[in-house]
């Protein structure tokens, strides 16, 4: 075990703590991740350890933070989780339909499509995203 090993485990522990502490405010996770990833990159640049380990440390901490960030987004936006929480309630399915309807507003907000004559049409950015998504569905075979 060397200094980079210790830095890696300390960085992962800090990121995990910031992830859990984000329930008190998302800023805790954002700030914690920025500090840890920046620290990892800085350490990788100055360390006398083998370059492969330095690269793995910097990239590893960045991936760890990014992965946790996506999980945080899922915790807040997942329709399936909300549906599970409402299971047994008479309005469970209706609640899910409202969640789905809300995503139509997001399409315009993120400039993926624009409303023209009451009809949604993809923007250039939307077409690019649609191509990437189609490729992903094809590779993973998740019901394209």
């Amino acid at each position, binding site marked *: 075990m060397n200094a980079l090993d210790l830095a890696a485990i300390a960085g992962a522990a800090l990121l995990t703590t910031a992830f859990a502490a984000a329930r008190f405010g998302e800023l805790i996770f954002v700030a914690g991740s920025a500090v840890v990833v920046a620290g990892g990159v800085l350490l990788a640049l100055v360390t006398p350890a083998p370059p492969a380990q330095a690269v*793995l440390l910097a990239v*590893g901490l960045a991936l760890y933070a990014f992965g946790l960030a*996506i999980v945080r987004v899922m915790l*807040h936006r997942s329709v399936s989780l909300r549906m599970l929480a409402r299971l047994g309630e008479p309005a469970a399915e209706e609640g899910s*339909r409202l969640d789905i309807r809300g995503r*139509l507003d997001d399409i315009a907000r993120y400039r993926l499509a624009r409303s*023209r004559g009451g*009809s*949604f*049409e993809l923007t250039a950015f939307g077409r690019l995203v649609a191509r990437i998504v189609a490729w992903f569905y094809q590779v993973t075979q998740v019901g394209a």
Partner: protein
Amino acid sequence: MIDLGIVALCLGVALVASESALGGRKLQTGLSRVLVLWGAIGAALVLHFAFARGAGMLVFGVFWSGAFLTWFGVRSHVESSILLRLVFLLRGGGQQPEALLARYEALYGPEQRLEELLRSGLAEREGEGLRVTPKGRRILAAVDWLR
């Protein structure tokens, strides 16, 4: 640099093996077998670092955990994202909002999501209705705490 090549190769193997193990299913249905795969490949690489290099096991362990978390997050998000499904459905040309929603719900709406919850053991049938399983309750408790 050989180490980076080995890690990249193992990452590629893990990605291909995961897709093969899932076989078109959603992650929430096949997560345990994917975890075993990533764990086995990761453990082999940790042993390589321990015996061949004498250091770097924890660096690699954190890298591998990060790679798994990122893959899990991206795959899970893209496969379940309503927004991306709607964008995908718009590829064929412009559509009225109601028609787009109707098409989405026919293909991936609440009924399909309920089926997925049943398949993944998070919900179960109880007479005419459905109820959350103990596994589902544990997940909901964890999600509530983390929110």
